[in-house]
């Protein structure tokens, strides 16, 4: 009986005009976004390869270790294959940062090809799901019950010995299948294009990430679809139903997520960058002055003693930089605590809307969210320490070795090998951790689904048929 109801619903959709229009739109949007993303990802990959080689050459061109301190290393974050589906809103595909011992890491806007790109929304899979597909979910569901009621077919259907529960389940499953079928087909085609048309060498994590993202988007669409069915059970004319749904949709998808971060900034303000920077600068200068005083010892004129002095002085300098880095990180840590509070409030506020929940899931799964920003920053800071240690220790080591050689009666030897500089090695978080980050929002979406389905059922089982 149930399968019959589902088939009836599915066929009813398949023959309709809206199914044809919606599936064309869905197919074109999903496939188009994947292909465009793939093209820009490909371009980013070429550019990144060129940049990696060039940045390596730049380091090799330093005539000593110490220029590494101020010249620094430009590092290229490995491309994130998940950015094919959810682009990092800040930097797109490419992230280039400059790391040196003097200043904190800075990002170079390599991905910013054209300022216009930041005025229009990026149409990635996340955006398609969050805006376009959810709109289609409403289009598919707004007249699920009230449409049949208007046409009188509801009465007819229920005059057979069909339980209301079964009828509604048939509506949900049939309608949702009709919505999901073109989406999933387009996704499969998109994946084929990705794996056959491009040689990105996507690994299992990327595919699993895509699968999880798809499941999350289906969950989100089910919530919206359930909302549509729920509204259609208690609103009389289907025109009212769609108007009501569109108003809810516009609040949930357009308004609430955008208001949330600014409302959070109002509720929990953070100190301005200038103030933080001032603290850092003052502490920097203190440490600097202290070290200068400690180093204020005239270099000996005799070569052997000078070698020892140089090794010692380098050590002092290194410690100074490391201390400055720790100080800056401590200040950042305090700032981050405030910022995390603000971000948390923003997230909680935005979670009124399932659309925001889905976007947070997408950010978590694709490692483009706030947690990834922190993690990458931490990696940069650690690398900065490595660079600093390498630059000073290698020099001091050479001086000490030469001192020993001179004592042994051997000549001075240059052991300058810049190409042994520490490389930046960054790995994205594992899928389990990403899933863990997204879990609370996934549960929230499940809750929304359950809520709307149960509400729809409750209203429908009590409502009139005509």
């Amino acid at each position, binding site marked *: 009986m149930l399968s019959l109801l589902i088939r009836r619903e599915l066929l009813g959709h398949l023959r309709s*005009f*809206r199914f044809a*229009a919606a599936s064309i*739109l869905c197919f074109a*949007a999903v496939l*188009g*976004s994947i292909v*465009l993303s793939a093209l*820009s990802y490909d371009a980013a990959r070429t*550019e990144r390869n060129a*940049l990696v080689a060039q940045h390596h050459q730049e380091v090799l061109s330093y*005539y000593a270790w110490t220029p590494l301190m*101020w010249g620094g290393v430009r590092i290229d974050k490995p491309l994130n294959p998940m950015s094919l589906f959810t682009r990092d*809103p*800040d930097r797109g595909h*490419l992230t280039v940062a400059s790391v040196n011992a003097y*200043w904190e*890491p800075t*990002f*170079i*806007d*390599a991905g*910013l090809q*054209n*300022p*216009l*790109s930041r*005025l229009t*929304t990026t*149409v990635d899979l996340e955006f*398609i799901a969050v*805006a*376009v597909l959810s709109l289609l979910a409403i289009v598919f569901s707004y007249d699920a019950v009230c449409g049949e009621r208007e046409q009188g077919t509801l009465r007819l259907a229920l005059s057979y010995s069909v339980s209301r529960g079964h009828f509604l389940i048939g509506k949900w499953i049939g309608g949702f299948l009709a919505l999901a079928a073109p989406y999933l087909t387009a996704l499969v085609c998109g994946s084929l294009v990705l794996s056959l048309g491009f040689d990105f060498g996507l690994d299992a994590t990327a595919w699993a990430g895509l699968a999880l993202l798809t499941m999350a988007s289906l969950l989100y669409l089910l919530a919206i679809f359930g909302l549509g069915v729920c509204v259609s059970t208690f609103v009389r004319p289907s025109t009212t139903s769609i*108007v*009501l749904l*569109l108003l809810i949709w516009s609040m949930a998808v357009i*308004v609430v*997520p*955008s*208001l949330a971060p*600014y409302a*959070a*900034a*109002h509720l929990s303000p953070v100190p*301005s*960058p*200038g*103030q933080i*920077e*001032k603290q850092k*600068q003052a502490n920097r200068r203190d440490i600097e002055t202290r070290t200068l005083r400690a180093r204020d010892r005239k270099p000996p004129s005799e070569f052997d003693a000078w070698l020892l002095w140089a090794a010692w002085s380098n050590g002092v300098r290194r410690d100074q930089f490391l201390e400055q880095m720790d100080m800056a990180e401590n200040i*950042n840590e305090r*700032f*981050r605590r405030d910022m995390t509070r603000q*971000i948390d409030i*923003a997230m909680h506020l935005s979670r009124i809307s399932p659309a*925001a929940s889905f976007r947070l899931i997408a*950010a978590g799964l694709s490692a483009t*969210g706030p947690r990834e*920003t922190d993690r990458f920053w931490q990696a940069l800071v650690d690398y900065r320490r490595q660079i600093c240690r390498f630059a000073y220790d290698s020099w001091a080591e050479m001086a000490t070795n030469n001192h020993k050689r001179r004592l042994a009666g051997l000549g001075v030897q240059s052991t300058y090998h810049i190409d042994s500089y520490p490389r930046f090695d960054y790995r994205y978080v594992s899928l389990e951790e990403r899933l863990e980050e997204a879990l609370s929002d996934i549960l929230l979406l499940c809750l929304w689904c359950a809520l709307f389905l149960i509400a729809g059922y409750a209203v429908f089982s009590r409502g009139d048929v005509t």
Partner: protein
Amino acid sequence: MLISLILKELRAHVLTARFQAILVLQVVSLAAGFGLMTENYQTRQEAFHSSREIHRRENEHAFHVINGTEEYELHDLQGVYVARTPAPMSWAVRGLESWLPSELHLSLRHSRSIDGAIYRNPLTSRFPAPDLLYLSLYLLSLLAVVLSFDSVTGEREQGTLQLVLTQAVPRHQLLLGKWIGGFVALGIGSVIGVLVGVLFPLLSGAVAMSWSWIISISALLVGILLYLAVFSSLGLLVSCIAQNSSTALVVALLTWAVSTLVLPGPVREMAAQQSPALSKAELLAQYQEFEKERKDAIWALPWNEKPEWSRERERFLKENEHQRRVAATEEYENRLLQQTSLARAASRFLPAGALTNALTTIADTGVDMALAFGSAERQLVATLETLASEGGETNAAADLSELRLPSSAPLAARLTEASIDFAILCLYSILLFLAAHASFLRRDIL
């Protein structure tokens, strides 16, 4: 006759629950958006003022180093800190301003944007700012569709269309009455919302009232109304063509989704691909190469030359490097400009692109402003270099603590630029209305 038709349409709208809900939604969202954006603007302004004072002291300190000792100490320790003024209209249209650094740290070796990495709430870039542009682009246009999709089909379904046309009402007047009535009903909420919203910056004292300010706000409002007219006409056209309201709605919604959500991004991206530009990283790489070549050349100088000759050669090489840098920067700017104008021209042909361009141009937070900021930043670096090599007055360095966001063009020029977008939007409305008219004349009234 027309007036009574308009009034009838307007009255019919105003009495419905749909209109009231839309009105409330428009006013509440616009007011909330304006309120929060004003608050954000004030925060940024305060941060700017306090930063500028801090930086002024820092920079004077730095300048003693510049003036007194060798170059090494300069890039070792100091450099100057710069605070940027917030864009004056960024409380209404945030535009590209949110992507510009508000604090810079410039030294001879580095220029870094201080707030690029950790001082920003990452959610503000994931969820777009609720400014006037965003809300009108998506929310108000959707509400326009919702209000107008059944203006003809609804009456046809209820049978009132037949009744009206029996009373010797010409069809074109009926249609015009419907359009104007619907548009006014839609406009009421938007205008009230914007006017209520504008009160926030006025009352909180974030902006001062002036003629140019009033003109800008009115121009923004005109742009939004023209944009909404396009979607009003779209709703009318669809409701003339479609058999019943639900088909009309599906068609109208899908058209809305395609033209505002789906197309603008890809159109811009494809246009940008037609004219590839250098990335900033590539530009920096070129700088690096010039520097390396100069250093290599200096190393290659013979040791036994007279000292003044080699100093002469060094100065020559430095000058040469500088010229090559300027040329590379110019090339970078030209290509970026080329790419931007192409992408801009292409995206303008969509109503959403035209509105984006018009509003950001009027508020001066658009592409032109971003490009102007880029050259102002480079100018500042050049000034710093001159100061470092030639020295100067102490207050010259203190002046560096502030970067006035340059206005890309005077208001009149910006309005002229935006009027092209207005014309495009008008053209869309007229074409859609004419199409609606043509199909309405040919259709049955039953």
